[in-house]
């Protein structure tokens, strides 16, 4: 199987992270096979740094995205007319493919992790914002009426009644955001931000074992975070576990 000229050219992009990769004798012969177990066993450590780098991009991105989206949701919960424009604005940020977004920001923020974090955070805004608004809107009117009539201030109603009841929706949005972010962060390699994408790119482009391993780690990471968030949701909403009278 010959590599087309484009692949080689692509491998030269961002030459600063191009690495020599020692495939070893075992796998030279197995170059055409899909997965080389020996190489995988021997080289598992090399995935350590990329994984850490990946987390160093993903976690700040999620945190920033959540804080901003949450703040916007609280703001537009009081000031309703803000909702359509905010929804549209976050929607635009979501629609622009992250890869394009990475490069659009290059002139402004340059290569490296910061750009990746900004782009990924922007990407999560819409889903978190929309779900938070949805969760808040789904609180039954009678519950809010009772709270108000009993003497809760607006702020107390928000924090003690509305937000706890909105947790399931908010966490649902967060889960989607986290999983997507972990997957897209693999593209950060294209702007020299590191991450698991490095094991799928450059010289690794023609080595399936590396790609598959990195991909597996990405997906496992996503699964783990998803499960943790689901657990957190279950723990914080004990009332949803009970059955009807």
């Amino acid at each position, binding site marked *: 199987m010959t590599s087309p000229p484009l692949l080689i050219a692509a491998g030269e992009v961002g030459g600063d992270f191009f690495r020599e990769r020692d495939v070893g004798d075992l796998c030279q012969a197995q170059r055409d096979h899909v997965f080389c177990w020996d190489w995988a066993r021997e080289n598992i450590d090399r995935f350590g740094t990329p994984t850490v780098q990946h987390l160093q991009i993903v976690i700040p991105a999620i945190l920033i995205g959540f804080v901003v989206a949450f703040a916007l949701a609280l703001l537009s919960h009081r000031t309703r007319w803000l909702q359509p424009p905010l929804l549209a604005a976050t929607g635009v940020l979501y629609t622009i493919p992250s890869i394009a977004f990475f490069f659009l920001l290059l002139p402004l923020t340059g290569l490296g992790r910061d750009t990746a974090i900004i782009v990924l955070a922007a990407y999560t805004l819409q889903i978190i914002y929309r779900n938070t608004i949805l969760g808040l809107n789904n609180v039954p009117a009678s519950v809010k*009426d009772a709270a108000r*009539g009993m*003497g809760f201030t607006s702020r107390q109603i928000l924090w003690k009644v509305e937000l706890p009841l909105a947790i399931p929706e908010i966490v649902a949005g967060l889960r989607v955001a986290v999983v997507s972010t972990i997957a897209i962060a693999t593209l950060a390699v294209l702007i020299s931000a590191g991450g698991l994408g490095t094991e799928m790119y450059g010289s690794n482009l023609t080595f399936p074992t590396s790609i598959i391993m990195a991909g597996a780690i990405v997906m496992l990471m996503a699964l783990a975070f998803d499960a943790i968030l689901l657990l957190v949701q279950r723990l914080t909403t004990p009332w949803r576990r*009970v059955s009807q009278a």
Partner: protein
Amino acid sequence: MPSGDSVTDASQPAASSVRYEGATKRYPGAAEPAVDELTLEVPAGEICVLVGPSGCGKTTAMRMVNRTVEITSGDVLVGDRSVRDREPAQLRREIGYVIQQIGLFPHRTIAENIGAVPQLLGWKKERIRARCMELLELIGLDPELGDRYPAQLSGGQQQRVGVARALAADPLVMLMDEPFGAIDPINRERLQNEFLRLQREIRKTVLFVTHDIDEAIKLGDRIAVMREGGRVEQYATPAELLMAPATEFVEDFVGADRALKRLALMRVGDINLWEAPLAHVGQATAEVRAKLAAPDVEIPYPLLVDSERRPLGWLSERDLAAEVVPGQADSPLGPVLERDDVMRDALADLLQGESQYAPVVDHQGRIAGVLSIEIISEFLASPEAKSDEHPAVERPHD
């Protein structure tokens, strides 16, 4: 039942009066005010029912008291203090608020729901807990339910919790907006009875809104019949309302069956009930037969009761053929009435049950007497019933 060692502050007055002084609510853009210059006084410790057709402004008027609806002009005073005096949130913590859809917090346990306002007021944990237990007992719920969530309770139980929640901080006034409206008729009757029993104990000032005139007559010490604009057509006791309706509107609203409605003014426990000879399980039938043979016996059938004097059934001749009284009676009980039942409902039950006699029990289920249609008609024919002085008028002083 709570006694002197109640958790609330005994030095404070238990209830305040409520006074509307030309209170008006005008919504922007509306041609007519929702409530137009309402002037009304509710004495402390009484239940005032605001009743009228949909949209007449009764709910709006009620909500002006705790400022969930802001007053446009005029004033509302709770215990001689204008409601505008304080911050709305502060005001509302001293006023109990019960709404039709109940609005319990789904994410809080029953105990936490009840303790919500005390917590806002900064009560100590122990005090809140004690108060919760007290109230659960007061509304007749198993204290174990305190740790459950609202979704685990039935509609009737939830509404009771709603009332308990409103009472938790020992408010001066209670506002109730069609609180029993969403409950099925059977449970509604029970809840109404229990509410009256409760009120006898705690004597709160209650502003009660309903569109159901029968409920108004049953529960109210005073009734304000309203029409559009919150205009009061008549503000009077139930007896006055029924016997002397002030305007045609009131007459129409009360309904054509006014005479029958008068039966609603009385309770089963108000009149002298008959006694049925009682028979216990395992008693010698000879004894029972002796009772039946007595000259002054009013009811010719023996009533089977258990050790707690709770009725189990009516005994027949066949039952008495044996040596001892059997554990099960031949004839079923039929409708069982409570002493607090309104006479009108009792008559309806008797007629529907097609039985001549109905056992009457107290609120613990023990036999208190027997009612029959004959008794009712005898009473209605008596001079006592015909007088204008009705026992109902004196109801607050039961």
